[in-house]
């Protein structure tokens, strides 16, 4: 007898899995939030049309909250970071101990970008003519003031984008009339309260260029039932096809039960089968871990992860449910960031590659706990189109899995550009996060 959980003739659900938990499960995991959609298709123009991209630039990227950097990228007053999105550039600067500002990264004089990369400064001085502003954006100095007597300093302040922070992430919104970030995020901070993203740091940052529209790349990570085909080696240990899929206002999530045999796995695999697949133990290799008597794959992973995390957060780990130590909580915050919850440290971000709608940049951040003094954030490792994630040792086996996803992406883009069918068609539940995304996108871009 193997590890398959008997639920009779019906499909197993995530709530069945939660019923096995040995600790109190967080309420938000118990509360499903199924989306309601009156469409099952989207036009492929969204992915391939230059016109759509231009509309995204005007109506999405200039109007929406978006992740620029982490607070630890700019810990000291004067530290700054350059954030770029779809032909737009913003200078993110710590202007006070508890104050972060964002300015369009262009000199008001002749337009040169003010900062070319991240660094530290005591004032914002344009390298072209040394026109200078203080960290608050007020005009500070004009090297040849007699040439600019026609300027009103009050009218020559750097324009500002809105800034908000959550969980150590720094968000910007170019729209001066935007609602506060806290309104935009809704209940998301409550979901992540225990997972405490603020007291983590950027352990890894790897960016990679991909030959596809940014939504083709992102949507590949917004459902999990592709895993049975794209990641066949993972089929024994994750319950693909029965993820819980929840949609909220500006964020969504799907939860993939892990170390649970799902309906897309044939037969009744053993505990060792699950762990061998989990840890990529190959044929003729010994399982490198020892189980306690009566232990399941799920209880083994929970026990080990709880002890590892005890080293980071002490006995507070006893308040974490089993599910928080083993399952995959994949969130999307509209439009383009995907922080994982629980013990997972993955956070993805997707952006057009410069102003090119047919290629994109995918960022993989590991937002990790630490002990002692906060470590500095990792430098960005930049991968080109043909550099695999698996070449970055620090990503671990996740890099290999990401390569399998990337293997599909440019072929999806090519297929969309050559297709005769002018729409993509979505599943009725497992792809609801993508439908949620498409609906919000249309609201921004088409004003629906």
């Amino acid at each position: 007898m193997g590890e398959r959980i008997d639920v009779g003739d019906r499909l197993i659900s995530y709530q069945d899995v939660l019923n096995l938990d040995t600790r109190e499960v967080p309420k938000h995991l118990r509360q499903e939030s199924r989306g309601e959609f009156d469409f099952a298709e989207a036009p492929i123009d969204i992915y391939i049309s230059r016109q759509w991209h231009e509309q995204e630039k005007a109506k999405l990227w200039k109007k929406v909250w978006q992740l620029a950097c982490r607070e630890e990228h700019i810990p000291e007053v004067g530290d700054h970071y350059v954030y770029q999105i779809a032909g737009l550039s913003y200078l993110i600067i710590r202007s006070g101990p508890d104050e972060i500002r964002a300015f369009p990264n262009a000199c008001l004089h002749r337009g040169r970008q003010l900062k070319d990369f991240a660094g530290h400064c005591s004032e914002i001085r344009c390298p072209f003519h040394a026109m200078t502003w203080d960290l608050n954006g007020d005009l500070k100095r004009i090297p040849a003031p007699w040439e600019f007597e026609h300027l009103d300093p009050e009218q020559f302040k750097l324009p500002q984008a809105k800034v908000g922070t959550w969980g150590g992430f720094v968000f910007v919104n170019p729209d001066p009339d935007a609602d506060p970030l806290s309104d935009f995020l809704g209940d998301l901070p409550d979901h992540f309260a225990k997972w405490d993203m603020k007291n983590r740091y950027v352990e890894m940052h790897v960016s990679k260029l991909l030959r596809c529209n940014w939504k083709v790349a992102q949507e590949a990570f917004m459902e999990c039932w592709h895993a049975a085909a794209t990641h066949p080696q993972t089929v024994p240990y994750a319950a693909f096809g029965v993820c819980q899929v929840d949609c909220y206002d500006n964020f969504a999530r799907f939860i993939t039960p892990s170390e649970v045999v799902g309906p897309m796995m044939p037969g009744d695999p053993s505990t060792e089968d699950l762990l061998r697949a989990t840890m990529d133990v190959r044929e003729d290799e010994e399982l490198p871990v020892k189980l306690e008597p009566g232990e399941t794959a799920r209880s083994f992973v929970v026990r080990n992860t709880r002890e590892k995390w005890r080293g980071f957060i002490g006995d507070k780990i006893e308040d974490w449910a089993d599910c928080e130590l083993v399952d995959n909580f994949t969130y999307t915050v509209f439009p383009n960031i995907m922080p994982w919850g629980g013990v997972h440290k993955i956070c993805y971000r997707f952006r057009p590659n410069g102003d090119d709608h047919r290629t994109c940049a995918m960022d993989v951040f590991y937002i990790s706990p630490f002990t002692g003094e906060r470590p500095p954030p990792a430098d960005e490792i930049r991968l080109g189109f043909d550099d695999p994630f698996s070449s970055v040792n620090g990503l671990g086996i996740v890099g290999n899995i990401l390569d399998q996803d990337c293997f599909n992406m440019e072929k999806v883009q090519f297929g969309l550009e050559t297709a005769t069918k002018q729409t993509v068609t979505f599943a009725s539940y497992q792809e609801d996060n993508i439908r949620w995304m498409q609906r919000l996108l249309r609201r921004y871009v088409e004003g629906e």
Partner: protein
Amino acid sequence: MTVAGGVRHPYSRDLYELDDQGRVRVTRRDGEVGYYTAQGRWLEGAKFDADPHLCGWVSSPRNVHRMNTASH
């Protein structure tokens, strides 16, 4: 000829292994053997619909799972 790190396909039960020439050797349940590229393109031997994702998986450098390390 040596092969390394075989993975069995969960559906077909075919065995995917990387040989010392960098080819993916796929052994079917009936004993047939075919050789494929990391992208799943047929090279020689038995010709069938090899899974390109498993061809890529066994061709990639092996990286560790979090359960195999002291990392979180």
